[in-house]
């Protein structure tokens, strides 16, 4: 596991600071408590949080912006915001909820900033699909080519219809379906009540079922 404890002075100071925990201790610690350690200068705790949440946040961002490079850049920005906010962080909500709120804000801002640049999804025959690692083959006599085409079409439809959902529904589905957040956490991120979150998700899933019924 790569370490991100960047400031050697901070590392040197670790043994002198009684309340600082060793990296192995973080597994048993609450994320909020680790954030409080970061406030007091323990970068090892921050490394642990990055390793724990980088994949879900990158995946969340990827599904929001549908571009891996942009998703990773935005995910880095999320962790930088966390680092910058270490002084003002308050353990009012779960750390993951706070993290997803930052991610959601950044993703929405990015989507708004690049609204003009984005156009209807186009399939380039000479470009490798980042998800499948293959180039589109429209005519192939190999066995399974047809099923592969169908699979790709299905995947494209899923992507398109999830991305076409209204902003809040889309974010709720991504957090619920793909990140495994519960209603309360999603409600905290989107500043909605639990019942409103439930109803938002229900509408989103109903829409998706209608739109994707040809593939079911």
């Amino acid at each position: 596991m790569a370490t991100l404890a960047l400031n050697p002075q901070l590392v040197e100071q670790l043994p002198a600071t009684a309340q600082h925990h060793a990296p192995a201790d973080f597994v048993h610690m609450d994320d909020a408590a680790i954030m409080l350690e970061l406030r007091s200068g323990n970068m090892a705790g921050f490394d642990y949080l990055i390793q724990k949440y980088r994949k879900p946040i990158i995946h969340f961002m990827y599904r929001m912006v549908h571009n891996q490079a942009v998703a990773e850049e935005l995910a880095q920005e999320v962790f930088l915001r966390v680092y910058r906010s270490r002084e003002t962080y308050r353990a009012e909500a779960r750390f993951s909820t706070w993290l997803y709120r930052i991610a959601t804000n950044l993703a929405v801002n990015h989507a708004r900033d690049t609204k003009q640049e984005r156009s209807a999804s186009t399939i380039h025959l000479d470009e490798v699909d980042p998800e499948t690692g293959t180039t589109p083959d429209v005519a192939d006599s190999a066995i399974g080519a047809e099923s592969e085409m169908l699979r790709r079409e299905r995947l494209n439809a899923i992507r398109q219809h999830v991305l076409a959902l209204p902003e809040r529904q889309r974010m709720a589905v991504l957090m619920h379906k793909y990140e495994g957040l519960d209603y309360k956490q999603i409600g905290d991120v989107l500043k909605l009540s639990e019942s409103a979150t439930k109803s938002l998700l229900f509408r989103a899933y109903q829409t998706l079922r209608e739109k994707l019924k040809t593939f079911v």
Partner: protein
Amino acid sequence: MICRDSKSALPDLLLDPTAPTNSAVRAHVDSCAECRRELATLEATFALLDEWKAPEPSPYFDQKLAVRLREEQANAPAGWLERMRARLLFNTGRQFRPAFAAALAVALLVGGGTIANLSQHPAHRETSATITDLQVFDKNDQALQTMDQLLQDESPSDDNAAQPTT
């Protein structure tokens, strides 16, 4: 349970089929073919959504983040304005609740006081202690005068008795 209620609870049932809170929906679904079909299509849609996989983070993610963090550490700490902005954007807003409660209490006190003052009628105004004292003195004075008069009424016989006979 009716079908409409059951349909709104289907996503719950789908995600947590064994939860005790979903037992009523489960019972309804078991007995209703329409709702069973509805659940089946939802299950199929959920399964379909699973096909959308996100790629693994690139091997350079950690390095790039390390560089950006190093730059961040070299930078001056964020100013008060930037910290406030971050707090407003990303927190739950719970820390503002005491301030809101205090503002509401002040508003109620000021508003309530104004209304109480406006609704006060002059006829109901309470008399001050000085006026009450003066009223008491006045009453005492009247009582003394009455007593004097009564004494005067009794005195003529005495006066007559006192008059020297000629």
